[in-house]
């Protein structure tokens, strides 16, 4: 806590995060409502916007950055993300494959 940011700097960080998040949310809603009905690949865009918003909120709201002071948290979040990806992607892979082989609608 050597150079604690001032009140205004602190507040600015939250407001920046908020504005960016609002923009990204609007973009996601707009994308789905305009082209989502016919084009399934819109989800790729939604995913990118969602990930961008996750990063924004982690940085500006939750202070997960590469600064030394917060590095423990960053390592923790990175490791958790790895486990999360293994679990979610593994599940979708296995159950999706099973659904295809059983001719089920997943």
């Amino acid at each position, binding site marked *: 806590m050597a150079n604690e940011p001032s009140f205004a700097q602190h507040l600015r960080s939250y407001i920046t995060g908020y504005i960016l998040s609002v923009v990204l949310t609007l973009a996601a809603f707009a994308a789905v409502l305009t082209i989502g009905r016919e084009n399934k690949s819109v989800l790729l865009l939604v995913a990118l916007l969602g990930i961008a918003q996750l990063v924004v909120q982690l940085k500006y709201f939750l202070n997960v950055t590469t600064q030394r002071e917060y590095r423990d948290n960053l390592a923790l979040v990175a490791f958790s993300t790895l*486990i999360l990806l*293994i679990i979610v992607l*593994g599940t979708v892979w*296995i159950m999706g494959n099973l659904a295809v082989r059983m001719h089920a609608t997943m």
Partner: protein
Amino acid sequence: MSATEHGWLGKLSWESLVFSNFLESPSINEAVASAAGSLVILASIAILGLLTWYRLWGPLWRDWLTSTDHKKIGIMYIVFAIVMLVRGLLEGMVMRAQQAAAPDGFLHADHFAQLFSTHGTIMVFFVAVPFLVGLINFAMPLQIGARDVAFPVLNQISLAVTVSSGILLMVSLVVGQFSTGGWSAYPPYTGGDFSPGVGPDYWIWAIVFSGAGTTLTGINFTVTVYKCRGPGMHLFRMPLFCWTVLCASILMIFAMPPLSVAALMLGLDRYLDFHFFTNDLGGNMMNYANLFWLFGHPEVYLLVLPAYGIFSEVFSTYSAKTLYGYKSLVIATMCIAILSFTVWLHHFFTMGQSPTINIAFGIATMLIAVPTGVKVYDWMATMYRGRIRFTTPMVYAIGFLILFVIGGLSGVILANPTVDFQVHNTLFLVAHFHNVLIPGVLFGILAGYNYWFPKAFGFRLNDKLGRLSAYLWFAGFMLTFFPLYVAGLLGMPRRSFTYADLTFKPYMIVAFIGAMVVLAALITLVVQFLVSIRDRHKTRVPVGDPWDGRSLEWASPAPVPAYNFVELPTVTDRDEFSEAKEHGRAYQRPKNYRDIELPKNNPLGFILCVTSGILMFALVWYIWWLALISALAILIAVIASTFRKETEYIIPASQLEKDTEAWLALVEKSEAVSRDLEDSPRNVGYSKLEL
């Protein structure tokens, strides 16, 4: 399904009591069930009676039930685990007897199914986990030079919900029937359509609550190891046990949620007519298998990693050598922890996914053998040219080394999907996992129990009986489970209460004889405990270092005072206490005495134990008003406890000075005893410097 269908006691009625069945239709099957139920009731009455007779309620409440001391919480965990171990073992014996007597067995299929369901559930969730958590609670903060775990009250809460879930399982012996769906409780069999009784509900709530306790424990231990180490205790100076604790705790944090989710979803299916795992309306029971083993595989390593840690301490201490390949052991532990998240599919190779997926997971499974092999070689190299003493923990460790490798190899065989298709669901699998869990985990906790007992209570356990028990365990284990490999290869399905093909019979009889040897081992353990208490005046080790220990837990008196260390030791090396003894830094007078602040006693844990127990019972029996009241009581108790202001008490410096001076005077007049004499009455816990 709805509340209106039942009276104010929910599904509960006179017929729910186990004895009513016996009175209506007496048979050996019902007699066994009633005997078990009576045993639970009589044992409870006996304990309550003894406590009252000896006026122990006050001390029990002050010193134990409300304590936030990690050492006492650890001991309570272990006492609980031992009680459950006895039940789990007896259930195993009854099953072996049934299969040996088959085809003319004495149990009904339903009763047999309850036995294997409770046996598995108890052994994994209420023996292995709490025993290890207890040992970790006791030893880990001492080893890293900490005053307590990071969150002492949370620790108490974890214990509370674990114990109340265990009590729920005991209650299921008397009231109603437990699940017949195995420890893994696969739907749709355990769903409302096929198991309309209360059995699976008992399973669900015991799992959900004890799972929550284990998750909280994992958080607590991770933070303790990560943030509460004493001065100078770098991560790479920690005893290996602490590394394995860290990795196991990470597994608790990340592997318990899938189990909780699976159990809760099964609960939603049963209670609120959801369709997660049902046969109809788009439910998918394969999702359950996937979720369960997302937890189940890391769970195996959650159990075995701390046991590896205990063995590492034991090998090093009783070989009087520093641990060989410390860094490789640390890296191997971390590799195993991460790999354990990538192999869960090998529990359901036969589900119907493509061979590509099976191969991927099969290879990942085989990879785990590599870091495990590294560990085995490191342990052997630790013993090489060491001055080995064959004490009880060391005997367990050597037995582990040999038997566990066999179990591990049978695991590599099973990791091959084509082989697995042949032996899936046979006794081969039962033999395999008992072959890793008994030598791996059970021997580990028994070694740890013998190793740390003098630290906890101030006197040694009888080593002769300890070794006898260990040898009986080896023999009993081999006789019981090696025949099952053969029976499995011959095609005998697991979980069968009877069989028509008499080819299996000889193997089942040998296995039953083995189970009797295991029973002898258990009895020897009890006798060892009682004899050790009788002889305690000859085996006291008040100075605190009976085994020429190498890590910090041996640097304080035995039993350890509430504050652990008068002055937190400044660590300069691995094997800190060995170094300290060698360089004359051990048993030093602190430069100055300062007050120590410790967490006060807190009744929250006990309150949560009672209320969560009532909540679970009410949920199982659909007694909604009681469930609501107990849930509110939990909420209010937790919120009220956050309003407590005075949460610490002070141990004054004068008290510390008095204690320490008395201890140092004792050290002064004690005879230093060589390692070879550690089993003689001369060993008062002051070991002679031998290089």
